């Protein structure tokens, strides 16, 4: 059979003809009418572990919602920038999105009614979810009277310690109740092992370059950078005293070492742990999960106790990190998005599975009685870590969110480093910092013609 048209006669030759045919075929696919019966939901995440969890559970969701096509996309660390661009341009945002706790502040800038997320308070209240979750965990995702996200986690913090090495220093860590007790014990355990005048083994590792560990202590004590009304309170007496205590662990008591590498999850820090240079660390649930997956060779060497309290009977935990899930205002079908959101965050089986894979304690109280959470954890020498976390969960301090958190945190990092390295006293560093942040806020309010009142 002969081809009815000689390709050589096509203007410009055979190649452009093939390209034209391919272009026309592609157009058929691109412009073909979409299947109207199928509903689409785009769901963005930034954490690989979350992506894996949801990807594995989507088939279960699809059995009850066969007509919904969920596009789950993991953009990694760049996701927040992409979301910001999409919300600014009013185009291209997903229906559902997860946002990290240190990144949410920037999305709350401007008029509260113009925030790019749907206020979930009416849905949470009408369906009675607020009472079923740990209420303090809504504070990072709330601003004004609106709730823009549902907490993925609680992230209570415990003191993770090397039981073998503390015992070798004749310290029984389970007897520790307060930070004063810890300092006494830590001084015994911080040692120069080879007699060269240099300390080889520090009782605790703390991050002196960022706000992370200082905020752990400050939140535990009931302080914070901003209060519930949005006021800057980082120069309060409680904040100054906490920074004085924090710096004393390095400079006066000499029981703390700065984090090895850039943060607690740095390979250098893991190496120092394995070498026995670090004996304890303030660890939220996700960090224990991270250690378990990244440093499996240390299985059985760690134990956990509640954080030492500031006074006997005081709060024995704090909270570190967090993620929310929210529905963007660009979502065309918020009811459908709400259904998927509930499946992802409120489904008991899903939350138990999350604990089993990542050790993250769910904020849904109904999941706390699950057997999986009571199981002994081999990584901690058989200690039932889930039980300890659940015991601490009701004590979690609030962490009030603010649109200026990113700027504040950036400047707080510098203030902490200046105090620890003794360039400034804790009082000077925090007073100066508070003035800077207040002036940034005041300038914006002046520009926007806002009379300085409490925003919450």
């Amino acid at each position, binding site marked *: 059979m002969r081809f009815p048209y000689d390709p050589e006669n096509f203007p410009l030759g055979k190649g452009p003809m093939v390209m034209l045919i391919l272009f026309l075929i592609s157009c058929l696919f691109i412009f073909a009418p979409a299947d109207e019966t199928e509903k689409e939901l785009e769901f963005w995440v930034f954490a690989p572990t979350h992506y894996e969890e949801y990807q594995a559970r989507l088939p279960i969701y699809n059995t009850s919602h066969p007509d919904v096509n969920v596009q789950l996309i993991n953009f990694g660390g760049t996701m*927040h*920038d992409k979301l*910001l661009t999409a*919300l*600014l341009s009013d185009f291209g945002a997903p229906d559902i999105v997860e946002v990290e706790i240190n*990144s949410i502040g*920037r999305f709350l*800038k*401007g*008029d509260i009614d*113009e*925030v*790019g997320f749907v206020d979930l308070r009416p849905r949470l209240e009408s369906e009675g979810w607020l009472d079923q979750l740990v209420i303090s965990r809504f504070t990072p995702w709330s601003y004004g009277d609106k709730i823009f996200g549902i907490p993925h986690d609680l992230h209570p913090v415990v003191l993770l310690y090397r039981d073998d090495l503390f015992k070798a220093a004749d310290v029984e860590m389970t007897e520790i109740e307060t930070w004063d007790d810890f300092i006494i014990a830590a001084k015994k355990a911080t040692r120069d092992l080879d007699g060269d005048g240099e300390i080889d083994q520090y009782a605790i590792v703390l991050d*002196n*370059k*960022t706000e992370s560990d200082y905020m752990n202590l400050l939140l535990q004590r009931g302080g914070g950078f901003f209060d519930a009304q949005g006021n800057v309170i980082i120069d309060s007496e409680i904040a100054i005293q906490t920074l004085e205590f924090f710096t004393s662990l390095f400079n006066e008591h000499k029981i703390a070492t*700065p984090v*090895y*590498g*850039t*943060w607690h999850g*740095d*390979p*250098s820090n893991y*190496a*120092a742990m394995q*070498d026995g*240079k670090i004996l304890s660390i303030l660890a939220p649930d996700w960090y224990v999960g991270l250690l378990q997956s990244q440093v499996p060779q240390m299985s059985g060497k760690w134990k956990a106790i509640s954080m030492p309290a500031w006074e006997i009977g005081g709060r024995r935990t704090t909270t570190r990190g967090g993620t929310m899930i929210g529905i963007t205002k660009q979502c065309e079908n918020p009811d459908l998005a709400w259904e998927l959101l509930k499946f992802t965050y409120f489904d008991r089986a899903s939350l138990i599975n999350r604990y089993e894979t990542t050790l993250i304690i769910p904020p849904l109280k109904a999941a706390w009685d699950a057997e999986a959470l009571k199981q002994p954890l081999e990584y901690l020498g058989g200690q039932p870590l889930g039980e300890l976390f659940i015991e601490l969960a009701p004590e979690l301090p609030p962490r009030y969110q603010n*649109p200026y958190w*990113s*700027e504040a945190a*950036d400047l707080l*990092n*510098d203030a902490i*480093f*200046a105090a620890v390295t003794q360039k400034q006293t804790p009082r000077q560093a925090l007073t100066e910092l508070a003035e800077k942040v207040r002036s940034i806020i005041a300038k*914006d309010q002046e*520009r*926007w013609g806002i009379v300085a009142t409490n925003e919450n």
Partner: protein
Amino acid sequence: MKTKRDRYTFWNQQQKFAPYLFIAPFFILFAIFMVYPLISSLIMGFYEMRGFKSRIFVGFENFTDLFQDPIFWKSLLNTTYFALGTLLLQLPIALFLAILLNAKFVKGKNFLRLAFFTPVLVAGVFVAIIFNLIYDQRAGLINNEFLLFGKEIGWLSNPRYVMLAVILTGVWQWAGFNMIFFLAGLQGIRQELYEAAAVDGANWWQSFIHITLPSLRPVIAFVVVVSMIGSFQLFDLPYILTNGGEPADAGTTIVMYLYKNGFQFMRLGYAATIGWVLFIIIAIISIAQLKLLGIFREE
């Protein structure tokens, strides 16, 4: 109904406009993706965002604020330090490597050229992660194995050494890349010049000063200008190596500060101002360098 004459007129017109149509895609794309954003960002420098939906005219306030902003000056100083490190350390090393790999006595030149060039193929993120391990204060390769300075140096924890660590990483990553340009320049120099100089009794150093360097002038100008522009646009390497510029903003560069303001603090007007000030700085430095290197001089 069109007559034959009309068709000819159309053909003539089409021939007249065809060249413009052919070049139109470039100009349309250039206008949309270059001219419009540039003008838009310049205008943005005179505004500040109020959240996501509205912005407020602030006149020159962003510019006056910028010049009083200590973190901006610190980031400018850090970036200039890196640029000087590139100019005074990286480029001489690149030239030295090029001369070495152009010499007749060196064996395995192709392998060595590839080896020196390879670091530039590694993504900046991986380079930062690798050097993070190398610079670690207590467990890192430099402090732990080499003990070069007889004591632990906080390459990434002591503000004094942070930019030096970034410069040294930049040398490792980019010296081989710049070496290729110098090598191409060296191979383009006529051998007769060296032979004539040798006949006149010139030694190696005199040949280098009076033949090699002047002949390499256009290549040096290109490498210096491109390296300086790249240095002032430095972002990913220190961002990862120093965890966003820590400690105490010792690793913050101008572009990193621009990014923080635009994307983390949602201050797009201020970020646009930083971008334009950076543009002016780069333009002045580039023109000054080209003038100093005699590129505008008529031969």
